């Protein structure tokens, strides 16, 4: 196991320069170990201690008895979980939001990058890029806040315009049918522009002679796009797609949390929002840790599976 992690971490290494083994690297490099110390402490305290902390998923944790003193209950919480309708509801909501994102959000940066790539006027291209990168730097709180100010039924400008044309006001924010659409639209608005960077970088490496040759051969713009531009970013698309599939249970939880209100709970409640509400607010520590552990384990399996799949298809894996 150690091997693949180190290999992954070394992915961008240059040629390996071997040094002669000098006696006692500890003596020579004690300062390097000292530098490592704060980082190691961070990983141990804030990453590995919580990993050990998941044992409370198998206990009836009581804050008074502590982790060491609480009673063990085996898989009871997991049994409860799978028998619980609410659990399947959050599972379904998570998958549906991910599915919407995959269909409608995932292609957006690719399409934008292809459009940008076709622009000839460089100054115009750079201006468009600067504008569409901007929303990436804005918090989800602001994005959701803007949505409230624009789409709200009391004074929201969109509803005012609808009303001015004699239409009936639409409760965008409190209607379950609009929830996922809104979520995906916000994601496209905020991140699609930023997402073009990786594709534009791949496209910048395409030899312009290919296009010239294609023109001589009589290929129109669409044929050039199809036969030259798209193949150039195919492997990037593929890797990002596989990564997305591996992270299918992650739905951008801060975003969802901010968009949730009691009227859209039936479509918007996902793993983390549920864990936060029932666990941190409701105090069911052991049960919600079991929910979180289930999610983490499925996520781990999916990422490793996706990575294996990537290699299977002859692309370079991520790990």
């Amino acid at each position, binding site marked *: 196991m150690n091997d693949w992690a180190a290999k992954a971490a070394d992915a961008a290494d240059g040629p390996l320069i071997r040094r002669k083994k000098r006696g006692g690297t500890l003596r020579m490099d004690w300062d390097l170990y000292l530098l490592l110390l704060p980082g190691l402490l961070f990983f141990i305290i804030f990453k590995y201690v919580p990993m050990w902390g998941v044992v409370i998923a198998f206990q009836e944790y009581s804050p008074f008895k502590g982790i060491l003193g609480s009673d063990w209950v085996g898989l009871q919480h997991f049994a409860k979980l799978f028998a619980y309708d609410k659990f399947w509801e959050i599972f379904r909501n998570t998958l549906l939001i991910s599915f919407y994102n995959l269909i409608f959000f995932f292609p957006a940066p690719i399409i934008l990058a292809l459009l940008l790539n076709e622009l000839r006027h460089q100054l115009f291209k750079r201006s468009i890029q600067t504008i569409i990168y901007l929303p990436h730097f804005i918090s989800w709180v*602001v994005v*959701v806040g803007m949505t409230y100010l624009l789409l709200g039924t009391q004074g929201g400008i969109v509803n005012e315009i609808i009303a001015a044309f004699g239409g009936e006001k639409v409760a965008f924010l409190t209607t379950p049918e609009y929830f996922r659409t809104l979520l995906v639209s916000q994601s496209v608005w905020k991140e699609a522009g930023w997402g073009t*960077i990786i594709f534009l970088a791949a496209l910048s490496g395409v030899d312009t002679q290919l296009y010239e040759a294609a023109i001589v051969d009589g290929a129109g713009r669409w044929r050039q796009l199809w036969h030259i531009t798209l193949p150039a970013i195919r492997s990037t698309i593929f890797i990002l797609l596989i990564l997305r599939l591996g992270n299918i249970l992650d739905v951008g939880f801060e975003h969802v949390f901010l968009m949730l209100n009691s009227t859209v709970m039936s479509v918007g409640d996902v793993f983390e929002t549920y*864990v936060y509400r029932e666990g*941190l607010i409701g105090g069911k520590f052991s049960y919600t840790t079991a929910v979180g552990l289930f*999610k983490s384990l499925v996520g781990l399996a999916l990422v490793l599976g996706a990575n294996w799949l990537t290699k299977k298809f002859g692309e370079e894996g991520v790990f």
Partner: protein
Amino acid sequence: MHYKPSLGSRLFDAANVAILIVFSLVTLFPFLYILATSLAPLQQVLRGGLILWPEEVTWDAYRTIFSNTHFVRSLMTTVFVTVVGTLTNLVFTVFMAYPLAKKRLKGRRTMLFLVVFTILFSGGMIPTYMVVKSVGLMNTVWSLILPGAISAFNLIIMKNFFQGIPEELEEAARIDGCKNLGVLFRIVLPLSMPALATFTLFYAVGHWNQFFAAVMYITKSNLWPIQVVLRQMIIEGSTQDFEVAMGELNIIPATIKMAAIIVATVPILLVYPFLQKHFAKGVLLGSVKG
């Protein structure tokens, strides 16, 4: 190219330019609307309708939010967390990335594995919360800084960046009498400025926009960062603090909300052009495969 573009090709270009202009306008529209409304005089706002240009500039809404101690205090908290948090991030990340970039280091592979593993698997929200609580960080600004001191992704990217620096430079520095730390501060860091600029930007944006950590770890409203206060004002619609001020100044809350959004957004957008020249391209894209 000397080929005369065909009609189809020109139509293609026209459609392309049109689509991109529409997308850019959709991107800019909320900013313009909110900025214009926050600056518009009361009569114009009360008349209703779409405001994209204030008839005259009024700063009343801004005066109101800046005279609100709750809002100003949260802004100060966020500035503090952004400055101190970003410095912490950089120091922790650089200090750990540099030794891990040295292939001779014993235990390096194990440590790298442990770092990468945290990307794949985590203890989850509740156990992390329990750790933060038991080390006494609850209701301190440090709960917004320390639990996220290192991003494992950034660490790996920085380590790879350090490894890309030619080893000969280090050898030369050693011959000139530099030890490990000397090499780090005199050779490696000066050569890594573009990378450091990029990480500074990303960490700083992360801190400025930090929201959920504060929801979890900070229960006292006088320690809330700006994002939590914004949410309370705009999304939960709880404006009791501001209704008083509203009575005095006779400004409708929408303009105050919009002014608050502008105040919470503009500082982080100002950082962007300064660091843009060093941007992502060199550092991040080189490390993301594909």
